[in-house]
C-alpha cells in the first residue's frame, strides 16, 4: 500500500483479555517500529524490527507485551492479560533501507486501545 496500515483502528476489550494489533508497513521497508502514545504525551518507543528479528525491544514495558514479524513484512503486537493502564494509541512506523532513507520513519494512523 501507499502508507503504513494499522488494524483495527479502534479496539475495546475487557481487563484481563488478550489482544492483537496489526501493522502493514510501506512496501519494501525493512525496518518496522511500534510506539505507544498516551493522552497528552508524545509517542514512546516500544520495539523495532530489522527484517524478521527484533533489533531492540528495550521499550516493552513488561512481559505481557510481545511482537512478531515472521516474514519481515506485517507485524503483530500482542498484549496478554490487558490492564486498564494499557489503554492508549498504539502507533506503527516503518523506514526504508540504506543511507538517509533508513532514518526517516513514516507512521500509520494508529490503533486506539481501550481496556474497560
Amino acid at each position: 500500500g501507499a502508507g503504513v496500515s494499522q488494524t483495527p483502528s479502534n479496539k475495546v476489550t475487557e481487563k484481563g483479555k488478550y489482544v492483537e494489533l496489526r501493522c502493514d508497513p510501506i512496501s519494501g521497508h525493512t525496518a518496522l517500529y511500534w510506539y505507544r502514545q498516551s493522552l497528552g504525551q508524545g509517542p514512546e518507543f516500544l520495539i523495532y524490527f530489522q527484517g524478521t528479528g527484533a533489533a531492540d525491544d528495550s521499550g516493552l514495558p513488561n512481559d505481557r507485551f510481545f511482537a512478531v514479524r515472521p516474514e519481515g513484512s506485517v507485524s503483530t503486537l500482542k498484549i496478554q492479560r490487558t490492564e486498564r493502564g494499557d489503554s492508549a494509541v498504539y502507533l506503527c512506523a516503518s523506514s526504508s533501507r540504506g543511507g538517509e532513507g533508513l532514518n526517516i520513519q513514516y507512521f500509520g494512523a494508529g490503533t486506539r486501545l481501550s481496556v474497560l
Partner: protein
Amino acid sequence: GIQVEQSPPDLILQEGANSTLRCNFSDSVNNLQWFHQNPWGQLINLFYIPSGTKQNGRLSATTVATERYSLLYISSSQTTDSGVYFCAVALGGGADGLTFGKGTHLIIQP
C-alpha cells in the same frame, strides 16, 4: 536516556502570524525529525534534519547539532496548521527508535 524538551507547550495565534517552535535535546543525535500530528491523530513528516537548514513552502527548520537544539518556523499561519508539533530524536546513525518530546500544541484562530 536522551531527554527532549519542547517549547512553548501551547501557542495560540491568529491566522497569518509567524511562529517559532523550539526543541532542545540532551545528547548528540544522528536523527532528528519534526512531525505534525493533526486533529485526527495522524503523524505527518515535516522534516528530517539532524543538522543544517531546510525549507518546504511556509515551513522551515534549522538544527544546530553542536548546541543541541532545533527550531521549526511556520510563516503566514493557516487554520490547517493547528495541531501538535513533535520533535523526535535518536542517537544512532542507523534504524533506531525515536525519543519524542511532549510537543507544542498550536492553535491557529481565524
